[in-house]
């Protein structure tokens, strides 16, 4: 079979020339290589690769589970532009990203700087900062919902103690529900990105700090001249990961507010779920997912481009 499929020029003689041996070995390697990859690849191809490609095609079709799919060109995208709730979901997702990305980044960097030292017990503090990340979103959302309880919750009790007369209604208020979700997600995710920042800090050569010290640089100057530039690759990575993660936000919103009150916290993933899986409008939902994917892609590319430009300077 393999012989028939590979178009090899018929130059090989009957005697095993070195070239023929090479080719045989290459073919053997290909077989062995594929045999290792195949078990995973079968699952991956059927359940990830095919759906990714199908998602593209579907977004140009109209299809529910009852009628056969029909090619409708750009209709789904036109509808998307006029769909109030999709526009709201897009706006809310952007709002969430604008809060979640910078705040998580600052918190994670702060924690990493605080915990990047050799002192007794630092392991415990790192573990404590990381712990929220591995607890389930449902438990986290449930607990924070209670902490944010407008009347009796500890958060508002604390705010009143600080002298805030009418603290926000958090998840019951259309203005404050999204900030409540953002705060919860920052708290949960900062430990994860702290680990990345810590690894980045430890990759900065100690000699650079020593050289700066010899030159008489103060702590702040050393931070600006050595730490920040040294962290650029990690910062870039964190920025991409955080942006992508923000656009995908789903379960925290579903459990904390389910998009409410009203549509105040409805996000894109939720809109895809509602249109596609609940209402069975596969084509239209796929069009929304394509927008989500393009957003993620554009942001990743812009950040890549921005970073490479800064590096060249």
């Amino acid at each position, binding site marked *: 079979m393999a012989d028939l499929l590979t178009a090899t020029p018929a130059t090989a003689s009957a005697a095993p020339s070195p070239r023929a041996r090479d080719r045989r070995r290459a073919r053997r390697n290909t077989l062995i290589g594929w045999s290792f990859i195949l078990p995973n690849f079968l*699952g991956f191809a059927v359940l*990830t690769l095919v759906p990714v490609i199908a998602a593209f095609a579907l977004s140009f079709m109209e299809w529910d*589970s009852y009628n056969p799919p029909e090619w409708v060109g750009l209709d789904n995208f036109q509808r998307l532009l006029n769909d109030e709730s999709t526009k709201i979901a897009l706006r809310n997702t952007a709002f969430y990203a604008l809060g979640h990305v910078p705040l998580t980044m600052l918190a994670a960097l702060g924690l990493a700087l605080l915990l990047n030292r050799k002192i007794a017990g630092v392991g415990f503090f790192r573990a404590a900062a990381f712990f929220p990340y591995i607890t*389930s979103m449902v*438990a986290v959302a*449930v*607990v924070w919902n209670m902490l944010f309880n407008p009347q009796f919750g500890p958060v508002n009790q604390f705010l009143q103690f600080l002298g805030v007369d009418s603290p926000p209604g958090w998840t019951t208020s259309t203005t404050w529900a999204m900030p409540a979700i953002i705060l919860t997600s920052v708290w949960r995710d900062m430990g994860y990105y702290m680990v990345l920042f810590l690894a980045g800090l430890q990759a900065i050569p100690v000699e650079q*700090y020593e050289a700066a010290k010899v030159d008489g640089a103060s702590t702040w100057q050393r931070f600006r001249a050595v730490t920040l530039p040294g962290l650029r690759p990690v910062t870039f990575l964190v920025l991409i990961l955080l942006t992508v993660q923000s656009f995908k936000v789903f379960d925290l919103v579903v459990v904390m507010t389910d998009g409410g009150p009203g549509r105040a916290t409805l996000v894109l993933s939720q809109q895809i*779920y509602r249109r596609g899986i609940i209402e069975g409008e596969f084509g239209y939902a796929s069009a929304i997912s394509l927008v989500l994917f393009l957003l993620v892609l554009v942001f990743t590319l812009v950040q890549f481009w921005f970073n490479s430009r800064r590096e060249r300077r």
Partner: protein
Amino acid sequence: MSTVDTAAAPRARGPLAIVRRVALYVALTLAALLILVPFLWMVSASLKRNNDVFTIPIQWIPKDFQWHNFADIWTRVPLATYLGNTVFLSLVITFLQVLTGSFAAYGFAKVRFRGRDTLFLMYIATIAVPWQAYMIPQYIMMQKAELTDTFWSLILLQAFGAFGVFLMRQYYLTIPDELCEAARVDGLSEYGIWARIILPLSKPALASLALLTFVNTWNDYMGPFIYLTSNDLWTIQLGLRSFVGQFDADYAMIMTGSVLSVLPITIIFLLGQRHFIQGIASSGMKG
């Protein structure tokens, strides 16, 4: 984890150094408390009478401990079923992911053949595509195959992730090729090299992948939420969520359920902390 002291280290002895050190520990303890406060509140509320959960001022230590909350919850909701389902799913998915992931990673890292790198690029590219972007076709496929509302859907969807292949490959690249070369000279087949040389050497990476996959599956909400509709198939996350809807004002019980859903993960985290952090640091950094 080796650390490099980059901040201004109080090397000098003397009263100032001691003050700085104390201040540092106070700051660290405050930060840790602030981060852990939701958990403390959760545990405290789970041991209270329902009326005592929301009091002004906050009661941090319950007046009298309601230990029976932790016994009662098992009869209020089918918690044992939920936990059993979650354990089953997490174990099966973790096993398959680690097995197929490390097997495929060997092909990508140690066997040279045409098209290998293109194929790997395809894997990487799909990691960048958000899952939400292709969940509709996946759902249609599962529906056509009549696998929705079975464990099969979740096992198939999560056991062949590209992430596991990526993580293991990154680790295998750090194992010198000479080791495999020597084993080949000794007459070991490629499968033998994988099983007897590479696998034992990659224990830390296997542990990282296994722990991360287990915890992710345990905590997964979106997958079970979309695919599992029958109550007797629910995982602990779905159970907890529906519990909140059912017993809206039963705050103490809800917190008891939350504690029980978080407890197994806490134990696993405390045992395997190092591997978690290494797995995250290496999968994030070496890419």
